[in-house]
Every structure is written in C-alpha cells, then in structure tokens.
C-alpha cells in the first residue's frame, strides 16, 4: 500500500505529496487564488520533467488549495515588469509557462487535475492539456483574457478551437463562465465528481500502480456522475452560438448577435453576450478570433509558438497597450473602465492584426523553442 513519505513545507507554493507510484501536486497560494508565478511554473516544469523519467511515478494528480484550482498566471507581476520597461522579462514568463503547457499536452504519463473551484487562464493551461480533468459543482471555468487586453493563451487556441461547433469562439471571446456540468458537456472536463466524493477518489487513485489509462479512467468513472445542465446554460444556446460565432469577423459576429437580440427582446443571455463583447478590448477580440481559427488547423506545438509571438507583441506594446490598460483598470486601479486603444473594432486594421502573428523584429528575440518530445502518444496529439 502506498503511503506518504514526505512532509510538505507549508510555505512552498507547490506542495508535493509522494505515494508509492503517485505524486500529488497542490498549488499553494490560496490568498492569490493559486495564481501561477514564475517560481511555481519553474517548479512544476522541474517536477513534471523529473516524473517523466522516474519509473516509479505512474500518475500525477494536480489540485489547488482553497477555493480555487488556479485563477491564472500572476498577471500583476507581469504588468509590473512591463511598466518598469522590462517587456523581455514579461515575455520570458510566458515562454516558461507555454513550455509547461506543451510538456503537459505531450506528457506520456496520465495527469488527473481536480478542478474543485476556479479554473481560469493559466489554471486552464495547467490542467486542460492533461488527459483527465475532473470538474465538481464548485468548478468555475473562464478564459477572461479579452477583458484584460490579452487573448486566450496557454494553449487555449488549441483546446478552445476543438470544442463543439463554435463554442470555443464564444468562450474565448466573451470570457463567459462555465460551471462543472457545462465543462463536462463541452469536453473541457472529462469527468464530474461531487466534491464530497473527492477524498474517496483521491484515495482510490493513490493506490494506482500502473499508468494504464483505461484503469485510471475506470477508477474515476466509479466516482463520477452525469450532472444536469442548469436551465439557463449557454450550452442550450448552441444553435445561436453556432449561427453567430461562426461569422467571419468580430464585427459580423457582433452584428449577428445584435440581430438576434432585436428579434428576441429581453433575452438576458444575448444581452450579456453582446455586453461582454462590447466591453472587451477590440484589438484582443480580433487577434483572439484569428488565433482560435488558426488553432483549429494546428497542432498544440504550433499553437503555442503562435501564441508566444502574439504575447510577445502584447507585452512589447508596439501595436497596442491594451494589456497594460486592462490590468490597470481591472487589477490595479480597479475602476473597471479601461480606455482601449484602438477604441473601436473598425479602427483595428487587418495590418495591425497581422503584426501580432509575425516574428518580433527585435534583436535577441526568438520564436518559442519547444522541447523535443520523444514518441508522442496518440492521446497527447488530440484530446478534445
């Protein structure tokens, strides 16, 4: 029987619990909702790399301490670097984070993420790429980047683009929140386990002695339920989502939604969807749409390389400084009133969008170099 062999130190931002064949990593910055800072990312990268070579590790469990799994990357620190004129440091943060995302997406051993709380941005990147994602009634998923002047990154252009129909465009552009049942329905989660049964599930998983995917799946299946979607779930609006979010441009998406709204007065969902798009950074919306669309045709590695180009442009801020502005308005000054520049969709030209997808013309800047991965398992190539 497996047993705990080490006592984690409370001050560690990633707690490690070792059992015979299982490692449980707990993100441990509960006051910051476990937001990933540079150290945590480095630590996770180091641990996952070591576990891959360690024949005694058959399964890795990832969870969060407190009410969040992980609320995202530590954006506040990144913006501080940008404001101090050090965009390269900021880019370096994303470089590290995307490398972690790639490692998880191509990981040869099973990863079970227990998403009992908030899963946003970087938190999604640390879990959705893994093979098993367990949602609960406490799960809250979102990719809220467009409201911050950023775009869905951490490999989201890969996994959002693979959601059913045009649900990915909807989730990525509006930053809408999904609950556990919705996550399961659209495939972001593979299982739904009530939080009261999580400890039993973990206990059972801790007895695993092989990496056999089918066996682990069977164990999680045993504790899983099929939750009902709430009446007002966006998932029931799939026809409207497909109809509107399949449009070619952000402008056309917005006008299709507004047409729907005109025909269905007092539809709260439509109103809030339109509002979300109107509040988001126009630049963010346009680059996000394009990157999700491109992501649909790319492997996860290509997606991350592209996202790294984009995020480098974002932090360098030559085309638009919306990321700084978004963070100022939502995280620092908290006036919730960002002044986007360009201020309107029609002012964002194709040429400006195009620039985000090009290499940076800056000495020393390089495309994201993904670590070589030997013999990618089929499960690592496409999951959703």
């Amino acid at each position, binding site marked *: 029987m497996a047993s705990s062999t080490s006592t984690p130190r409370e001050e560690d931002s990633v707690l490690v619990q070792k059992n015979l064949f299982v490692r449980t990593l707990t993100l441990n910055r509960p006051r910051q909702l476990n937001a990933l800072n540079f150290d945590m990312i480095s630590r996770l990268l180091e641990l996952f790399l070591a576990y891959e070579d360690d024949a005694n590790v058959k399964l890795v469990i990832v969870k969060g301490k407190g009410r969040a799994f992980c609320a995202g990357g530590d954006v506040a620190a990144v913006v501080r670097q940008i404001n101090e004129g050090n965009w390269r440091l900021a880019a370096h943060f994303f470089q590290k984070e995307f490398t972690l995302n790639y490692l998880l997406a191509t990981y040869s051993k099973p990863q079970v993420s227990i998403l009992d709380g908030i899963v946003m941005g970087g938190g999604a990147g640390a879990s959705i790429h893994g093979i098993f994602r367990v949602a609960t009634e406490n799960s809250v998923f979102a990719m809220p980047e467009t409201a911050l002047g950023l775009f869905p990154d951490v490999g989201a252009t890969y996994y959002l683009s693979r959601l059913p*129909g045009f649900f990915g465009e909807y989730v990525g552009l509006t930053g809408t929140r999904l609950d556990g049942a919705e996550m399961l329905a659209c495939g972001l989660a593979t299982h739904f386990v009530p939080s009261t049964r999580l400890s039993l599930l973990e206990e059972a998983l801790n007895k695993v002695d092989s990496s056999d995917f089918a066996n682990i799946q069977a164990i999680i299946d045993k504790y899983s339920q099929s939750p009902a979607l709430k009446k007002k779930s966006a998932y029931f609006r799939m026809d409207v989502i*497909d109809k509107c979010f399949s449009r*070619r441009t952000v402008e056309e998406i917005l006008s299709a939604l507004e047409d729907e709204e005109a025909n269905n007065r007092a539809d709260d969902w439509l109103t809030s969807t339109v509002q979300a798009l109107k509040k988001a950074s126009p630049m963010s919306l346009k680059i996000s749409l*394009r990157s999700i669309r491109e992501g649909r*045709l790319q492997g996860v590695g290509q997606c991350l390389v592209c996202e790294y180009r984009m995020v480098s442009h974002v932090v360098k801020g030559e085309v638009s400084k919306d990321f700084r502005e978004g963070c100022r308005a939502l995280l620092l000054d908290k006036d919730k009133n960002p002044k986007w520049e360009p201020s309107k969709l029609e002012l964002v030209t194709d040429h400006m969008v195009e620039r985000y997808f090009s290499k940076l013309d800056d000495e020393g800047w390089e495309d994201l170099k993904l670590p070589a991965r030997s013999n*990618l398992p089929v499960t690592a*190539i496409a999951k959703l």
Partner: protein
Amino acid sequence: MDRVTWRTRVLLNHLNQLSSSSNPLSPNPCLGFSPPELSEPFEFDTKEMRKLLDAHNLEDRDWLFGLMKQSKLFNPREAGGRVFIAPDYNQSMEQQRQMTMKRIAYLLDRGVFKGWLTDRGVDAELRKFAFFEVIGIFDHSLAVKLGVHFFLWGGAIQFFGTKRHHDKWLSDTENYAIKGCFAMSELGHGSNVRGIETVTTYDSSTEEFVINTPCESAQKYWIGGAANHATHTIVFSQLSISGNNQGVHALIAQIRDENGNVCPGVRIADCGHKIGLNGVDNGRIWFDNIRIPRENLLNSVADVSPDGKYLSAIKDPDQRFAAFMAPLTSGRVTIAVSSIYSSQVSLAIAIRYSLTRRAFSVTPNGPEVLLLDYPSHQQRLLPLLAKTYAMSFASNYLKMIYVKRTPESSKTIHVVSSAFKAIHTWHNMRTLQECREACGGQGIKTENRVGHFKGEFDVQSTFEGDNNVLMQQVSKALLAEYIAAQKRGKPFKALGLEHMNKPCPVIPSQLTSSTLQCSQFQMDAFCLRERDLLNRFAMEVSQRQKQGESKEYSIILSYQLAGDLGRAFADRAILQTFIDAEAALPAGSLKNVLALLRSMYALICLEEDAAFLRYGYLSTDNVAAVRKEVSRLCAELRPHALALVSSFGIPDACLSPIAFNWIDSNSWSSVERH
C-alpha cells in the same frame, strides 16, 4: 541537410530497429504507427511556404474550413481519433443532391457568398476564388453546383447583361432567391458552340422572343442544376431576326415556378447517374416555343429593338461570338486552379502514407523499408509533387492576370487559361492515378479520397472546353502571332514569345549536374523546343496551303505538331511563373527547396516529352544525364517530402484516415465503436 547525412540517418534508423528487435525471445511485435512528424524534421518554414502557394486570403480560407468542419451537414466522421469531413458518397444520387443544397443553404446563411456578385474589385474577386477553392477541396459537386450558379449564370448576367439585368438579377442570385443554370451545350454540340441548333425568333407584335428546340440533337444537355433545382437559365441559341441568322446569343428564361414546378413549354429530364459529381443535378431541357419578354435578351453585345431590328456595336460575327465566350474564361481559371488543389490533397495523402507504411526488407530478417525510402517510389511521387508546385504558381499567375484583366489582356488570358486548364487537369488525373496506386488497396477505399477523386475530377478534362480542342486553340493563337509578326516584320511582343526575338539558345553537349540545375539552361531548353515547334508548325501549315489545302484544314492535318506546340507553350509559361515566384524570395531555406523543386519540374518535363529527342533538342547523352539528375533530385527532395505536403495547408480533416494512424482507424475497437 545534405544527402550523405540524410542517408546515414536513414540507415542508422534501420540499424537501430534491427538491434532492438534482434532478441530472439521477444515475440515479433505488431506493426506500430509512428506519426511521420516525429522522424521527418521540417527544414523550412511551412507556413511561409503555404503563403506562397495559397497566395491570398489564407485567414478566410481557414475560416471556411472551420465553418465546414464544425457543422454536421459536412458529414464529420471519426477514424483513428480524428475527425474527417467528406460527403457520404454511399448516399443515393437524389440524397447527395439534397445534401449539396443543404450545404449551400448553410454557407449562404453564414455569409460565405456575400459580395460574390455584388462586390467589385480585385480583393472581392480573390476572396471569392479562395472560398471556391476551399469548397472544392471538400467536395467537387458542391463547387460545381456553386460554379454554375455564380460563375456561369451569374457571370453571364454580369458580362452579357446590362444595368437592367444587373439590377434585377444579381442580388437575387447572390441570396439564392432564384437558382440559375446555364444552358449552352446540346446533345449534338458541345465544344462547337457555334453549331448549336436551338433557335430564337422575335415576335414584334407581343415584343417577345420565342425559343424553340427544333430537333432532338438540339436538346440542352449536361445542364448543371437543371434536373432538380434551377428556376432560371441562360439559354444559348441561334438568333433569327426576320429570317436572318445573327449567330449565337444568350437570353434569360424561367424554367420553374416558385414551387419548383416546371414551367409550361419546358420539358426537363435527368442526365442520370454519373461516374462522379452525383451531387450535381445535371439535366436536359427542351423548349417548345416558349415566350420570354424582349428585355430578357442579354444585350451588352447586341440588342433587338421593340419593332424587331437587330442592333449591334460589333459588326463582325466572329468578334461578337468571342465576346459571348467571356464568362467561360472564369470557368477555365477556376478549373485550372481547383484541379491543382485536388492534386495537392491526393499527394498529401499518398506521401503521408508512404512515410508511415513499410513493405519488404532489404536484408534477411531486417526491418521493412518505408515506401518512400524506395527510390522507385520517390520517382513515382516526387516529380508529380514538383509539378504540382509548379502548377500552383502557374494557377496564382493565371488568377492574378484574370482579376486584373483589361480589354488588352483578354487574348493572353484566353490563351493562357486554355493552356493551363488542359495541362493542369491532365496532370491532376495522372497524379490521382499514381497516388491511388501508391496507396495500394487503401487507395480504393472511398474514405481515402484519392481513388474516388478520379471519378469526381475526370470531367474537368472535357467541360468548359475539351482539353484537346483547347490545346489546338493555343497552337492556332501562337500561329496567328507568328504570322502577324512575320507580316509586319516586327518582333514578338505577346504571349511570352519575346524569346523568339533573341538568338536561338544552344544546349551544351555535356550536361553537368550544375548546368542541369541552372534555371537559365532549363528555360533555354523549353524556349528552344517552343520556338522550333512553332517554326515547324508554321512551315508545315504554309506548305499544305501551298499544296491547295485551306488554312483550317491544314491546321487540322498538322495536329501532331500542334499538340507538341501547345504543350511546349504551357510548360514554358509554367516554368516562367515558377522562376518568378522563386526570384521574389530572399536567400534562405525556402528558396533553396524551391530551386530543387523547380529543377525537378523542368527536368521531368525534359525527360517525359518525347519532342526533345524526336526533334533533336537534346542528344541521347543529354537525356541520359537528365535521367540521372532526376533520380538524384528525388533523393534530395526525399527529406523534404513531409514538409512540402504540409505546406499545402490542407486541414487534416480534409485528408483521410490513411494519412494518419491507419492502424488505429482500422482496429477492431474502431469496428466495435461504429
């Protein structure tokens, strides 16, 4: 990577496998699938290469691919953990036709056709082409059905019609408020449009035209859209005004009412099941003296006054007829382009398969060898890949001269589009057959696309102008250019014939590898062939004329030279587009690999066209050197094969199960799942 390191690596891989499987106690392992991406590194930026090949509207293309992939209407099917989209060709003809219309309705609703007829300008036209190409990659029926409605029906109204027709029809066509078709071919007359037998007369008492099918051979035939869906058609007929035949004219006639019932005086029958394109409802139409308003004559070239007078700005009936053929040019452009996309899909599938499928060992008990590591397999596929690249550049050139057309460029567009349409579609059919065979039995399965494409794309060789007739027209146009230049004693200055003004190129007696790879040498050889064949053709025709034959009959008798000349013109024009594309690139890996492909394209043409030996442009020694160089180039291109087909940018979903994990997609568990 140079060839030596490459070979070393291949051998090393084989040896490594040998040692790992040499344990006599371990059971013979089942064949495993390994994605080719793991062992085939990309040595140039495939995204940049795709930009060169697709040339325009890449983002729009990907949006449309996504639109199709996300809808159940496009028949997504799971195999080996991936989703593929392709029509269900096992459906009946009627079901396939219904699905085509449903797909059109879906794309219409998503705004795909917005501006196809109502927006003007180069950008709008290029976007339309891009969408049309993407649709053709999914299904040729869907593309042809749209092509008839937008390019033929819509194009006829745009080009032959005047403001009153544009205002009345274009927007309704774009929204599918009406469905158009294009009744030109007849049972008795296809490529020879001037011989059609349908007759239109004018009744000045009611100010109406009367259209009639006077005999069975005059029934309209192969009219796409006519059998089930079209509400309106363009009718081509002889226009007889007060007993004078004014030649072929185009009119608009309604053939079905809003409820889909065939109009009185119109009879329609189905062309029946076909070897491909069963999603298109080709039909036959008979007209029994139906009456249509005077305004329905498409009158940009000629009109009939209310009291029945024939009026035309163009007095010469030949020129008038030529003006009527204008919309067919856009058809030839789209066919020339779409045939190359079909070749791209089939090569991507066959080459991906050849990088994952092994057969036979070279040593006793040794590991089996990858198909594409056999030089013979390389020689089957890689020259076709090089030609497909060359013709992709040629397609882009053709599209650009078409969208930027001026009255002065119309002759060039006519000649180049005819030549490229014939050469590209022939190349595609050949490529499909080779790829089908290269996939072995798997190539037979409809789900693997390449075999099925043969039936779907075969028609391209004859519709919108029979390839052989088109090539004859190319030679005729070149001859006319030759005669005009001689008569005026002026230099050639059109159709790329300027090289005829220079001294005749000389081919060195010894051809080294570096000479063979030099674009100047390659162009010299192509020009030499074209110039000599044109001289010979002109000479032979004039000799026959001197012996008393008519000019037309002389040209017909000189068909052998005419055929050789048409090909020589096309090959040279294609090579020129390749050289131009290459020249626009900065030095680097992309340019280097294109140089290899260009050399392969040029040398395989030298090797394959017997004209080089027949007329002595190359010696037997030269040809032997060419052959050796082709084989060497195969080995040099081999390491780039995967990157070259990945650069096509065809989404995985539009390839097929054998292009990926064909063991998983054929496993027993996959049988149980479905």
